[in-house]
């Protein structure tokens, strides 16, 4: 799919996500806005997945380890046809399949349950090991937050992935520089992240995580380094696309007022017009 189409879809997902969080009165809008371009590129350009056969054995696997941004995943899955679009309006409602963290036993397209941070990468390592054992060619992608990388379990998995030479595994770090309560650098700094991962035996690429062209290029097949797992450090902004939310830790899980919601929606509509004009 071409980059303009992908941008249009990402914009549509942002608008639906914003509305869902506003209507549900809960969600993690900051981290949702930061990860949506990555999710869009994956589901509409990179991943070999089929909504009609969500459990096809040779599908590519995607694990959204930062499970608190489930709403962005649900909207993306709906956009891609895994679940009905109308179902998004049930987000967080009593007995909905769409609770605050994704549930693979209920929602097609979700590979494993996340919510407690630091779980996705070890599971991704297991998926990639399974692919190797089966001599299968499918790829495994894991998206983590940057604050999430403070969990030690990630570093155990980072070592294991290098040890097992998992070149079918790609970790995408949504590096928005913010965690729940403060900046990552002021809490438990990750820097220098690329150097750390390289020294752990990974191939590392740094990109602008809101530049669709760069995301697609970094995640497309054929660019893996043989024998090494790959990490794409995606430099993003929490709250990206909504000026007053962007790079502000207050928007980790704040819910916009009606006035803020309307302002945000206008900004996203303007962005849509710009994408269409540029096309």
């Amino acid at each position, binding site marked *: 799919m071409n980059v303009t189409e992908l941008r249009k879809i990402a914009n549509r997902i942002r608008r639906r996500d914003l509305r869902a969080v506003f209507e*549900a009165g809960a969600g993690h809008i900051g981290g949702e806005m930061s990860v949506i371009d990555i999710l869009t590129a994956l589901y509409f350009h990179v991943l070999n997945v089929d909504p009609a056969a969500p459990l096809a054995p040779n599908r590519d696997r995607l694990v959204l380890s930062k*499970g*608190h941004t489930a709403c962005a995943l649900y909207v993306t899955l709906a956009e891609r046809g895994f679940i009905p679009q109308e179902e998004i309006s049930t987000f967080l409602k009593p*007995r909905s399949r769409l609770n605050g963290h994704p549930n693979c036993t209920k929602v097609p397209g979700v590979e494993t349950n996340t*919510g407690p941070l*630091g779980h996705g990468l070890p599971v991704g390592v297991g998926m990639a090991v399974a692919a190797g054992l089966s001599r299968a060619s499918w790829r495994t992608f894991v998206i983590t937050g940057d604050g999430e990388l*403070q969990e030690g379990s990630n570093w155990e998995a980072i070592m294991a992935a290098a040890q097992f030479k998992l070149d079918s595994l790609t970790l995408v770090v949504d590096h928005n520089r913010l965690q*729940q309560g403060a900046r990552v650098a002021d809490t*438990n700094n990750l820097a220098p992240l690329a150097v750390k991962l390289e020294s752990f035996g990974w191939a590392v690429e740094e990109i602008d995580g809101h530049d669709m062209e760069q995301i697609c290029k970094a995640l497309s097949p054929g660019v893996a380094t043989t024998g090494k797992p790959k990490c794409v450090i995606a430099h993003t902004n929490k709250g990206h696309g909504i000026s007053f939310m962007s790079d502000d830790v207050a928007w980790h899980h704040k819910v916009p007022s009606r006035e803020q919601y309307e302002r945000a929606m206008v900004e996203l509509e303007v962005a849509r017009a710009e994408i269409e004009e540029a096309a």
Partner: protein
Amino acid sequence: MELSVRSTELHDCRDAFTETLMAIASENPDVIAVCNDSVGSSKLGAFRERWPERLVNVGIAEQNLVGVGAGLANGGKLPFVCAAACFLTGRALEQIKADVAYSDANVKLCGISSGVAYGELGPTHHSAEDFAWIRAIPNIAVVAPADRIETSAATEWSASFEGPVFLRISRVGVPDLFSEGHTFELGKADMLRDGSDLTIIANGTLTHRAISAAELLARRGVSARVLNLATVRPIDEDRIIAAALDTGAIVTCEEHTIFGGLGSAVAEVVVDHAPVPMKRLGIPGSFAPTGSASFLLDEFGMSPAGIAQSAMELLARKA
């Protein structure tokens, strides 16, 4: 004593917890708050402002969090380790066992937003197993206060107690039950209301629901005793045995799975000493559906009317 819910105004027990923690910390410079990127959710903002160097935020790393707490205790500090109850207990259980309980480190583990307080965030965020997990580990007190007054009293007590404590603190609003000046005694159940037909035993956010259930039962001519069992371990055997002998039937209510928690702990005492029919209310051994905390408690039969209904059914089984 005929204790009833004193007012319908609801309070978040986290506020009482941090206010008390700050009062203790202003007297005792060794008090340290330890957290995991949870300054906001543990309500430690004012603590950080006042004593920035006494707030140790390890980032999103619960195993490290509890280990650091144990090290601080070894170094002569009095650490209050604060984190969402689900991650504190689930993620760092072995640190709790080896570094805190087995090593007898004077660490206060404060499990915030316990039970199903996180509602719609789902089962990963529900702390529905912590009584069972921690109760199974020797040498650690398990305490779940029922209102802001008991929260404050239990927090104060924990600072003066030498040894590992797990304090379970909800964010779900609860009305005042105890009167100001209430002191907390480890291992002592409070009889909040006497009764002769059956006993309802609860703690935490379920205690006020149990009292309301007893009031509903009274209107139906059933006299229900209500025990607040804030300490799940060490358990108040005497009061539980007395309840079994005096009333002949026991309903337990907890914001926890019915496997291994308060109801199980009570049942252990009852089968050993005074077998009577029981009904254990709680999360029935399944992952909760999507819904708010109050929706889920009602869903699991723990609205006051639901508890009263279970009590009536239990009475029918009484010999």
